[in-house]
């Protein structure tokens, strides 16, 4: 299993491993979408993938560029309207895992995808929340996947687009939200989980070849490591093959 792989491949594969065949997963575009479909094509063939475009139990053969590509509809069990998707399926409590990305994240896994700088005089205007604010509270638990870096992993968010465990880690419970929130944060360097006492996201698994120093260098706050950090198992040949296959199919399809 000494095949070479990129940090991004490791991230996607580690994220995929978090899903089970019995999960009903609300899939964000980009890295989450690759991870979820990799899970479906490897160890979790029964996983139900739902995209906010209304496609339920979809099985795309190529990764969608957008959240509403025809491929998602053509391979779905059924497709519902967007109001129904947000009312009956997301708010209805039918989703076990919400799998999202983000532009910036803090130590309690709150996410910003709205704005850098002042909201009314933005330095950088980001795309906005989309489905994330309600995915964050209405799914059973949340998996997040993002590549690390000091501009992404920040000490203090300029704007909370979707709540993780809240600004000090306790607000989710205080607000009466009964879902678990972010239980896994899968990066290109490591995997983090919330500390049982504080909800601070804590490194529990380090990807092969990555140092603790590298992780800290790419994080805007003093990052915590679990007392029982393990090494993330390296990608298997099959994981890499399936991931590269679908990415190659996708590249060809989108260039057409």
């Amino acid at each position, binding site marked *: 299993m000494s095949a070479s792989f990129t940090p991004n491949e490791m991230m996607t594969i580690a994220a995929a491993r978090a899903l089970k065949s019995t999960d009903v997963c609300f899939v964000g*575009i*980009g890295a989450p979408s690759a991870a979820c479909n990799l899970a479906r094509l490897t160890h979790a063939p029964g996983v139900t993938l739902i995209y*906010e*475009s*209304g*496609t339920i139990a979809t099985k795309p053969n190529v990764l*969608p*560029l*957008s*959240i*509403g*590509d*025809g491929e*998602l*509809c*053509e391979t779905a069990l059924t*497709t519902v*309207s*967007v*109001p129904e*998707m*947000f*009312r009956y399926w*997301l*708010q209805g409590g039918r989703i076990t895992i919400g799998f999202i990305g983000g532009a910036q994240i803090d130590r309690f896994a709150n996410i910003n995808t*709205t704005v850098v700088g002042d*909201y*009314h005089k*933005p330095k950088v*205007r980001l*795309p*906005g*929340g*989309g*489905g*994330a*604010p*309600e995915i*964050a*509270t*209405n799914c059973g638990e949340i998996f997040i996947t993002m590549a690390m870096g000091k501009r992404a992993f920040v000490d203090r968010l300029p*704007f*909370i*687009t*979707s*709540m993780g465990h*809240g600004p000090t880690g306790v*607000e*989710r419970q205080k*607000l009466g*939200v009964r879902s678990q929130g972010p239980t896994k944060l899968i990066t290109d360097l490591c995997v983090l989980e919330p500390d049982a006492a504080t909800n601070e996201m804590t490194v529990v698994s380090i990807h092969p070849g990555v140092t603790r120093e590298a992780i800290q260098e790419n994080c805007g706050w003093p990052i915590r490591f679990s007392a029982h950090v393990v090494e993330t198992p390296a990608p298997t040949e099959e994981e890499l093959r399936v991931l590269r296959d679908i990415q190659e199919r996708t590249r060809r*399809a*989108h*260039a*057409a």
Partner: protein
Amino acid sequence: MAQVLSLHDAVAEHVRDGDTIAMEGFTHLIPFAAGHEIIRQKRKRLTLIRMTPDLIYDQMIGMGCAEKLVFSWGGNPGVGSTHRIRDAIENGWPNALAIEEHSHAGMANAYEAGAANLPFAAFRGYIGVDLPKVNPRIKSITCPYTGEFLATVPAIRPDVGIVHALRADRDGNVLLEGITGCQKEVVLAAKRSIVTVEEIVDDLRTTSYNSIVLPHWTITAIACVPGGAHPSYAQGYYKRDNSFYIAWDKISRERDSFLAWMKDNVLDKDASAFAVHAKKQA
């Protein structure tokens, strides 16, 4: 009592300066031809509503049609930023653009309430996030039974709702199929509606008793514009032109290249330019 008009006449008659307009289509069936026609007819001061103001609103805003944008996710999906919208928000080019920002759930509920003729929608949303601090239209309500707080948004009731659909029959009934987003809701919520279609046919060719059909008496005007959703797609007609979405990033990045593209592909053309994209799939 849908009237069948040319796209030019439908826009000329039913879209007015200063109107509030919702153009929907969630990736699928985005009414690009109608957007281009509005640009050609130089409509101004529009309030543009759309969950995902991607290329279509990037083009309309870059050409100065809008003074306000209501949205929940603004980007070129899977590619990056909508540069023209950012230029308007960050630099006021070609004019200042006010924004009213929601989440997808907020907007989907607001359309749903509009279609249902309710003044507002209540939902489990916006918990623990900052958007309500910058959008005063997000409020809350107390459940009269459980005492729970729920977020509220006002219903969306646009002056004009514009969507693209697969086809209409001779009576003006319209079929939607596939990813239908909020398209039914926006037509039902709007005071006036314009629907562009791939074709007008004798038989609507519904395949299910429960097919998604807009009866003719819910629509103001229908215009037949084959290919009218390109670079978006029409299920069963043509695929999404993902390569164009990728190419748009470069076209739109600079004002000059954007304006040049708009002149060649929009201002100097008419709705028939979309026909080349309409080739029906086998």
